[in-house]
């Protein structure tokens, strides 16, 4: 198949985040993470457990925007908070209004906590997620305002802060990946800082650096994000997102 779009590279990069998770609950927050997790369940990790985003565990993978499906279990909020997050068999992919060089994430507010210039969601479950189960992040519009030196309010905890908080905070701490519209990152640069793993085709390392508000570590030559297989493109285009909602979140240039 031809003309792979940027959003489709993002979808497979997100799917790859869940590839080696085995039988755990995937908690993708938002559109592209949901697409990627459903793609992983159809390809690299059929054991992945996914919900409708409310209280039902779904057997299958309905198209984006739909949740009608065979239900294989019950997952109300109370069980997420008391029987999945601390249990640890989970991989959450959250959004990030800010994410910094040390892997701290902010979804709470912009500005000083006492009187923010822009109130956002609050910390939600980010503090608990990051010290209990594998956590990845998705940023649809990589910019120097989002990828920053230091977040304003630490909602999701990066490695250095987890280590400073003691072994109870590092025991299950596992910030896995950051996927953006420009590339794929982890936090295994020097002192657990942000490191560029791949750039999506059409994006250069310089593009990534220019769009970032902090230094981005690079080990040698940075490869391109892998091309989706024909099967993956078929799944994305025909089964999981026939309406092309992914293009709204990550428009093609």
């Amino acid at each position, binding site marked *: 198949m031809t003309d792979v779009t940027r959003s489709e590279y993002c979808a497979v990069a997100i799917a790859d985040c869940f590839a080696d998770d085995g039988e755990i609950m995937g908690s993708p927050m938002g559109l592209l993470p949901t697409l990627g997790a459903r793609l992983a369940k159809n390809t690299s990790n059929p054991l992945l457990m996914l919900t409708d985003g409310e209280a039902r565990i779904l057997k299958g993978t309905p198209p984006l925007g739909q949740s009608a499906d065979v239900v294989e279990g019950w997952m109300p909020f109370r069980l997420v908070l008391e029987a999945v997050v601390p249990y640890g068999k989970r991989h959450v992919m959250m959004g990030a209004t800010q994410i910094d060089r040390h892997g701290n994430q902010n979804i709470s507010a912009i500005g000083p906590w006492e009187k923010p210039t822009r*109130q956002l969601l609050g910390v939600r479950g980010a503090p608990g997620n990051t010290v209990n189960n594998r956590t990845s992040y998705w940023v649809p519009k990589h910019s120097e305002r989002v990828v920053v030196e230091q977040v304003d309010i630490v909602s999701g905890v990066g490695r250095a802060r987890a280590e400073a908080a003691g072994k109870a905070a590092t025991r299950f701490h596992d910030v896995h990946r950051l996927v953006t519209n420009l590339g794929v990152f982890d936090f295994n640069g020097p002192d657990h800082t942000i490191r560029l793993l791949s750039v999506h085709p059409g994006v250069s390392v310089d593009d990534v650096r220019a769009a970032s508000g902090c230094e981005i570590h690079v080990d040698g030559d940075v490869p391109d994000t892998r091309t989706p297989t024909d099967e993956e493109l078929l799944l994305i285009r025909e089964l999981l997102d026939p309406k092309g909602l992914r293009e709204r979140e990550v428009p093609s240039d």
Partner: protein
Amino acid sequence: MKAPSKELSIDDVVGRLESGMTLGIGGWGSRRKPMALVRAILRSDLTDLHVVSYAGPDVGLLLAAGKASKVTYAFATLDSIPLEPLFGRARQDGTAEFREWDEGMFQTGLRAAAQRLPFLPMRAGLGSAVLENDPALRTVTSPYDDGEELVAVPALTLDVALVHMNRADTQGNAQYLGPDPYFDDLFCMAAREAYVSTEQIIDPAGLTVDAPLQSLIINRTMVAGVVETPNGAHFTTCTPTYERDETFQKAYATAAKDPDDWAAFSERFLSGDEDAYQAAVKAFHEEAAS
């Protein structure tokens, strides 16, 4: 001997609240919130409330009306609209005191209160800004060989809890019929007194005719009063009795962005009693349909 009915009116319930109380509100975001009771508080002369809530429009409205001087929350959202505009304005203007916890910590704080414990240990919060922004929070060290230092989540003890359920009987046995109980039983147990508003008060014999036993998450020992408020969670969800009124919520969120629009919205919908509110909502939809 027949047990006396706990059935109250909306005004009876609000009459039992006092300024300065810590008030827990059940539901989650824009889901099954006791909105009829919240609207009644807006009409009352109550002030200086400390509101504890998985916040949605309940908290936004109480802040905008100057009823809440302190809020404990993990998030504030309208769900289908990500941000709660009245809550956001109160945070940005600093019009109240705010305590922001992780949403698991919040549940743990309610559970500690329900079990009459001073705290419960938990991992969530470690390393995050939560501990910095709420200096009252402390850690606790395990007395066992692991020696782990964990967050000592203090009990979220409430004076009063308000929750909304699909059905109840006059004694306070109450059930949810949707997919999620949220945390309403914990709110009731964390409170000195809990009041249940409900779509329908029925005979207890009816509660399990068409719904499973385990939908009865609230029993009468947890409840001080019951009030029938049909459509009382509006505009939030009360699945399966009704879903969220998305059109109305959108009108709410849009009006909340501008002080003049908000004044007009308040005048139209929030200046009368609950019957007047429901009539105004009906008229709003008839207008939209014509």
